[in-house]
């Protein structure tokens, strides 16, 4: 039987200094998988900023494991002690958890599903890895559809973008005014831009900030994160700008400490003001929600992993089942041949009826043994059952 092997490391086991040694871009990951697959194996390399994992399918699990570990060690010699090695059921379960975002730094993050899909596309896959990766992607999508694990933002910048969507809906053609350009505000602006918004103005210097009044009447979102010691935007200034806005909504995000925006702005009609504390509390709340949802997600992943295990285990008995069915068919056809002299008197439709009845008898007789063998395979007795069937029915040595 073909075995599934996983060798890799992640943020749980290795610090960034080690992970960066074996971090691969798409081309490198594809090349590594192709190299590992040269000896007739299947291989996929999943490499993200949090993990590098090699999934290999081969008849000899030990040899595949050694080859994968050696391939990773060749990229970073110090990586060997932090590598984990999993096989078959455990390896599949791990991949399903990864695809569902349950092994991520932030539980339920959605980017990993796309990364697993790309890794699958770039890998050198065969029947086993193709099946396990397809099922992992299915498990990941199912978790996202049936739980709320990925619905809420997991960072301050994502929370700011989600709030903007809560106010405006689509962010296409919405404009942003950036007051100051700190790291978090840049991330928030990038997040908004990725959803279609445009940056109308970046007011960095004090002189630029004094000229924003006209922009205030036009923009939809203001993100402030200056180092100014006092308020940069007073409520009176915003109230004046509101008159020219004709009821258009204005979202203001204040990421600065000390705050840049007058807290009284939040009381103005059509203005929605959030400061850094508000955003951080939202993120804390949403992370706790994700952790609660993670339990439900784990159950979904476990069920999918079990399905894969049943399929994988059934591979043990598939040759024996195929031989048994072939033998039965052979006997059926031989017996029909023997009765040819009698059957010759039948017309075409009667012959077809006899064919169908005999085929049905064979199928019915073999149905239960087939089901029982597959069940036994899932319970680790599959090989014994397969041997017993071969012995009882005298299936040939060539099928072993």
């Amino acid at each position, binding site marked *: 039987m073909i075995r599934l092997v996983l060798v890799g490391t992640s943020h749980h086991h290795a610090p960034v200094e080690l992970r960066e040694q074996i971090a691969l871009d798409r081309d490198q990951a594809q090349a590594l998988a192709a190299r590992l697959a040269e000896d007739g194996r299947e291989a996929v390399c999943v490499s993200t900023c949090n993990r590098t994992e090699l999934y290999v399918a081969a008849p000899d699990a030990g040899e595949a494991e050694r080859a994968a570990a050696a391939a990773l060690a060749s990229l970073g010699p110090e990586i060997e002690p932090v590598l984990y090695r999993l096989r078959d059921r455990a390896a599949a379960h791990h991949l399903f958890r990864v695809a569902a975002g349950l092994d991520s730094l932030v539980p339920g993050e959605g980017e990993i599903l796309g990364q697993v899909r790309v890794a699958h596309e770039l890998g050198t896959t065969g029947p086993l890895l193709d099946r396990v990766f397809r099922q992992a992607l299915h498990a990941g999508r199912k978790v996202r559809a049936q739980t*709320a694990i990925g*619905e*809420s*933002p997991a960072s301050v910048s994502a*929370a700011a973008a*989600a*709030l903007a*969507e*809560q*106010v*405006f*809906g689509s962010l296409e053609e919405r404009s942003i005014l950036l007051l100051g350009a700190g790291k978090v505000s840049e991330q928030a602006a990038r997040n908004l831009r990725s959803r279609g918004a445009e940056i109308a103005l970046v007011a960095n210097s004090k002189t630029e900030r004094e000229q924003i009044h006209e922009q205030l009447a036009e923009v939809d979102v203001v993100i402030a994160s200056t180092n100014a010691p006092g308020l940069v935007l007073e409520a009176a200034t915003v109230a004046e700008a509101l008159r020219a806005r*004709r*009821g*258009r*909504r204005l979202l203001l995000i204040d990421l600065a400490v000390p705050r840049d925006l007058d807290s009284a702005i*939040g*009381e103005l*009609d*059509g203005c*929605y003001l*959030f400061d850094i504390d*508000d955003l951080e*509390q*939202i993120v*804390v*709340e*949403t992370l706790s*929600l994700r952790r609660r949802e993670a339990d439900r997600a784990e159950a979904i992943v476990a069920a999918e992993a079990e399905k894969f295990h049943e399929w994988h285990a059934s591979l043990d008995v598939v040759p024996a089942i195929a031989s048994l069915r072939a033998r039965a068919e052979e006997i059926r056809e031989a017996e029909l041949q023997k009765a040819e002299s009698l059957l010759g008197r039948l017309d075409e439709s009667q012959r077809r009826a006899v064919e169908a009845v005999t085929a049905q008898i064979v199928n019915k007789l073999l149905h239960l043994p087939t089901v029982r063998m597959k069940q036994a395979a899932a319970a680790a007795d599959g090989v014994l059952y397969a041997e017993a069937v071969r012995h009882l029915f005298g299936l040939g040595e060539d099928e072993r």
Partner: protein
Amino acid sequence: MAELLFWPALLLYGEAAVGYFGDMRHPGRAGRVATWGVRLGWLLQTALLGVQAARDDGFPWGTWASSLDLFVWLVVSAYLIWGCRRPYRLLGLIVMPLAVALLAVARAGGGTGVGSASHYSNLFLVVHVGLVLAAFAGFTLAAALSGLYVWEERRLQTRPATILRRQMPALATLDSLALRTVAWSVPLLTLGAAVGLGRLVARGDRLDALIAVTAATWLVWCAYLGLRLFGGWTGRRAAYLALAGFALVVVVRLALPATHFA
């Protein structure tokens, strides 16, 4: 037959109302079950209206109670256009308890049975009663959207940490949906009321209190449209005006019908 359709429809609407309440506390399965309750209940109520029309050999909307039955069906129909989508489930918390209560009132008034053939013509019932009630159903939905707007805006201003826990329609979307719903409903009310007035004049009947309040309702919703389209009204102010207009709809539907149908 009508009994066999009425009770399951009422139960399913009730289940939906309870389901939406559960969905508010723990979003997820309860909301999905509630949405199925609305769909199945609506199908049964549609069948009920069909049976009533077939047995009475015409549209049975000539009494206040039976028109209330039709009104509930129209409100739920309008809700179903958006209500199946997840962000709008909360709207069901407003619409479905209302539907249950009104359907129960319609039954108490004898509006869900058969054998109450109307003395009005089918054409008049469809054009006058049908259009006016469709407009009122639209106003009810617009008011529900506006209520949701006010609630959501309040949350955005009080900034609770749980603000993003539930998927909600955006403020801008609620605002524009309410406007679109009213923009469809006002012409329906105008046409339906005009037909009614034409009949009134032709028969030489006198105006009653319900007609007067309906005219006031029409004026309020026309003002809503005018202020939104030409006066730059948007957001909270427009939402409050929609809620005021809905208060008049409630008066027309529940407080004054005796003066009209008698």
